[in-house]
């Protein structure tokens, strides 16, 4: 079952690459943000994949289990704890970005990045 772990790592890297592609080349800002959420999902999946133990059990110690048998069979729970935090952070970041997009849409009337987030230093430099 080591193939599962390998496939998981492959999937996570694929998600990161898809996300990076979207972040650079897609012009629509909402799609760009969707792509960024894929990068975060890829990183999360990678970390869960580290903790996975092929043929193991869920890392919950029940009363009737032998601790030494449990230690050698359970998957590694530390990465799972980390990913929980990371998922929530990703969701909140996404919410803040979408809120900013909604505010900026009212000003520009378009979702195109090249209009919305273009160079602003020239306009404000010397307004008569």
């Amino acid at each position, binding site marked *: 079952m080591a193939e599962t772990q390998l496939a998981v790592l492959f999937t996570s890297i694929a998600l*990161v690459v898809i996300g*990076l592609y979207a*972040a650079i080349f897609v012009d629509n800002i909402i799609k*760009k*943000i969707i792509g*960024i959420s894929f*990068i*975060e999902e*890829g*990183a*999360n999946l*990678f*970390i869960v994949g*580290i903790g996975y133990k092929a043929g193991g059990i869920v890392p919950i110690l029940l009363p009737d289990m032998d601790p030494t048998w449990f230690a050698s069979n359970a998957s*590694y729970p*530390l*990465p799972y704890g*980390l990913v929980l*935090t*990371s998922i929530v*952070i*990703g969701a*909140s*970041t996404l919410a*803040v*970005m979408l809120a*900013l*997009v909604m*505010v*900026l849409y009212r*000003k520009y009337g378009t979702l195109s990045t090249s209009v*919305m*987030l273009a160079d*602003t*230093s020239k*306009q*404000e*430099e*010397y307004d008569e």
Partner: protein
Amino acid sequence: MNELIPLMVIVPMMAALLISAFSKFDKVIRIFAFVVAICLPIIPLASNYGLHFFGGYQPIVDNVTNIVYHPAITYSFSFLQQIFIAVIGILTFLVVFIYLTKYKKVSGPYLFLLFMGTASVTALILTDDIFHMFVFFEILALAQVGIVAASSIDYSYEMALKYMILGSIGSPIMLLGIGFLLAMTGTVNVTDIVAIIRGGLLDITSPVFLLSLGLIFFGWLYASGLPPFHTIKSGIYSKAEPHGAALLQSFTVISMISIVIIMFRIYSVLPIFEVLIVLFSVIAMILGVSLALTQTDFRRMIGFLAVGELGFIGLGIGLGTQFAITAGLFQALNEIVITALLFIGFGAIVNATNEVDTRKLGGLLAYHPKVGIMLLIGGLAMAGVPPLSGFQSKLMLVQASLSCGYPELSILTIMVSIATFVVFVKTFYSMFLRPKPHDLEVVDKDVPRAMVFAMAVLLLIIIAFGLFPDIVTNGISSYVGGMLQ
């Protein structure tokens, strides 16, 4: 009194939550915010050095191999952390004080962001846990975005969104790096990782270890605003309110040094690590100063200067000897204070004239002599003129690079200092000394008292560090000595 160590993070965080929850009661949160802000610099000064294990999980000694494991999130508190947390506490107090006196009606969410940012940088510098570092790094990024978006300057939302998008590319990359490290070592505690590497249990030439360095390094570049992130970093400084920008740059400096110290402890076995840091620092110095020379918006100019100064810190740490790292950290401390002084002082000018273009300003020395003199001294300190604090740290950096056998780096350091001086003199001339243009109207003749008070306090710190650098450098040097063993 080790119970005070977690309080350094908990007090500002609880204050932030309470203030945003009870933001209806204007009078009460005004007093509450003021009291908490006074407490912030006092707590680290009253606390004793030591370790704090969250949840009380003491380190476990493996009887067979004699290796110590740390199951809890660990905070370590020593002189370095103490001085930095005290300085950031003083700065937060001054900024909150300026904010409270500036507005008739205070905004609860804005105070929430200021205190949350302070709490997260405090946690960043205290922590000994690489994932804990990542979490607070993300919270810090959110707080920074909020501070920028809350300002009333044109195009601040755009800049905040750009910072956020770049940040949400930088931080998952850093998380991937942490994941690689976790996959190799099975732990996130830095002390344990260092023990594993020193014990030879890890193949340091393996590509996974090298890749983890590359990915975490990229996250560090984003956190510290070194190239390629120098434009966005200087942009968010120029789009925040001046007192907010003073706090933002201190967040940047502290997150930079706390992440780089953790990286140094883990990766200093690889010689390429120091090469990378020196490379990016040199590029940051050159780009920051040469772009600052061509700016006409003085807030943007200070933003680029602040990025250029970050290069000095990186240079000191990249050289890797005890003296050089001490110099870099001392430079970091000076930069927090000096740049904050410059941002607050130039903010006072924006307040009085509503104008940020240096070409339209002039003759302000007659109107604001106090601010002018204090800004002049601050600028001289940034350029490294004796006997101010910038001189001491830059002299140490020049000596360190000479004694490491890199005379080119010391020439570069001196050149960048001179160029910084040119930038500052040019701006000072066109704002304060040259004749006042006819169409310039000085709107408000009074600079807020709180701003003058804040600048005076920061100036006192600059002069004190300049005259007696030993009070700081001895402690930092012994910390670095312990780190290098």
